[in-house]
């Protein structure tokens, strides 16, 4: 079965940017990814992980320097024209729209670039404006709109050609919570259309809420690809145990256990213990119960913890 998106050994080097060792900076380094048709796939990674580079390559805006990338079986390098008709791209942020024009005028301009015209273009424009909730502001200038409204125009622009594959590059970046919630509802609708969606984000909640599978990326490499539900199993050994009323000497003993990754105060007398392997969970529980601690809960890690655990607690640090 043909994958919607398939990359093999995909590499993108930037000759003008050097690493500390004087080598070309690799935004993507032998990147292997397979996204099935109809799937909503999340790409999770910190800034500079290579997510946007991948989006640019898949939308043919950027050429790879190594490996292959295919969209519905078409190579982005040799069959760029076919790929362009297949992919709808939605870049996040303020860029990518003509602010002096209205959403309707923007959609008509972009639609015509994909060969649409006449009644068909008008019909699709009107339908998308309604679908994205822009009907009431279809003839207002885009630069008078809020970030959330602009993002709706972006989505409508990406959908104007009814593409089977939609690439969303950090679509909720900078959106307020209400707008982000509306946006997620829209993506859920797209899933029911049977469309393939590749979504890049560094918002764990967003990936958990929207995606069938997620790929964790860092430094241009794939760290893991799993279903959203099972990705927690990757770090099953990183179970978390929350406990209350823990005496200080027990905290010290927990820290001393070889399989304990971290012991973090949660406020008051509560702590969170994160274990480095499954065996340690039992040891931690035994120690807590033996010390008379009865208020204990264990839980699998959230996607955010998996992400931080795999990539490292580097926060928002941007890669050089």
């Amino acid at each position, binding site marked *: 079965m043909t994958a919607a998106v398939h990359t093999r050994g995909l590499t*993108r080097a*930037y*000759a*003008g940017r050097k690493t500390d060792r004087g080598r070309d900076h690799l*935004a993507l380094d032998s990147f292997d990814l397979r996204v099935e048709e109809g799937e909503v796939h999340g790409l999770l990674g910190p800034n500079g992980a290579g997510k946007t*580079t991948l989006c*640019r390559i898949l*939308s*043919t*805006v*950027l*050429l790879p320097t190594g490996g292959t990338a295919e969209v519905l079986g078409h190579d982005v390098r040799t069959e760029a*024209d076919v790929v*362009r*008709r297949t*992919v709808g*791209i939605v*870049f996040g*942020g*303020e*860029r*990518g*729209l*003509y*602010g*002096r*024009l209205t959403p309707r*005028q923007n959609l*008509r*301009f*972009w639609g*015509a*670039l*994909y*060969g649409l*015209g006449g009644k068909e273009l008008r019909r699709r424009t009107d339908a998308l404006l309604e679908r994205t909730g822009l009907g009431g502001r279809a003839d207002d*200038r885009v630069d008078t709109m809020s970030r959330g409204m602009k993002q709706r125009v972006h989505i409508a*622009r990406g959908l104007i050609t009814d593409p089977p594959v939609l690439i969303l590059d950090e679509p909720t970046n900078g959106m307020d919570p209400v707008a982000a919630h509306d946006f997620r509802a829209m993506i859920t609708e797209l899933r029911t259309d049977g469309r393939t969606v590749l979504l890049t984000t560094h918002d764990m909640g967003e990936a958990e809420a929207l995606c069938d599978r997620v790929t964790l990326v860092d430094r241009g490499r794939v760290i893991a690809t799993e279903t959203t539900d099972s990705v927690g199993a990757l770090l099953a050994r990183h179970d978390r145990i929350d406990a209350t009323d823990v005496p200080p000497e027990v905290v010290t003993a927990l820290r001393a256990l070889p399989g304990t990754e971290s012991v973090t105060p949660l406020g008051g007398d509560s702590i969170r213990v994160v274990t480095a392997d499954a065996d340690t969970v039992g040891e931690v529980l035994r120690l807590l119960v033996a010390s008379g601690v009865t208020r204990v809960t264990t839980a699998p890690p959230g996607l955010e913890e998996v992400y931080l655990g795999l990539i490292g607690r580097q926060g928002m640090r941007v890669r050089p």
Partner: protein
Amino acid sequence: MRLFLNGFLFQLRLSRRSPDTFLVCVTAPLLTTVFLSINAYTGRHELTSYAVVAPTLMSLWALALSVAGSALTEDRDLGTLEGQIAAPAPMALTFLGRMCSVVVVGSMAFAETWLVAGALFGRWIALPHPVVSVACLLATALATAGTAGLLSPLFVLTPSARTLQNTLTFPFYLLGGVLVPVSVLPQWLRPASYTVFLSWSADLLRDSLATDPVSRPALRLLAVLALGAAGYGMGMLLLHRVVLRVRRTGTLTRT
């Protein structure tokens, strides 16, 4: 044709919301007033056609320079160039449509200068060869749009685009015989003038305003169109190479 029209209407909509485009509608009458005042002071009434033709061509050229200079760089800054490259349509046709839309606005300068000459200075210029005049204006507008196609990618490639833009105004008015006929330029400069479509346009437009028969109008119109087409062809080739280069180097989003 659909892509051309899309570009034409798109630029027209942008222009409506960008007063810069219509600035020539103010500068053209001003320039005409200056030239005709000098003309009246020196008593050289036979040069009235020069005072009408020069602001017309200067307006067209200045507008094309301004829009061509900003079209691609603005698209690059707005992030819309990425979307255009990611679209299957060739950029060349859309771009030609955009530039033609601009020169339509620029062509209005001719009517303005004609009115200024008549209404302010009482010199109502007759159009003894209306077909040649109109054809020359149309050909010049097309050639200007075509040449703008060459300038636009050139500005993207040039780090100091604004400086280049400025150097392409008055030197070109002189080289193109807009202010004075090419025949009064130094002998060694004239061959260069004939490679600039403006020189053919200026001469033909002035001849079409005189009562004498116009010599070889079709051939001269062809020269205007051919030079404009050559500029457009080179421009689109250059644009293709620029796009390929930014896709290869990954410098599209850099400004």
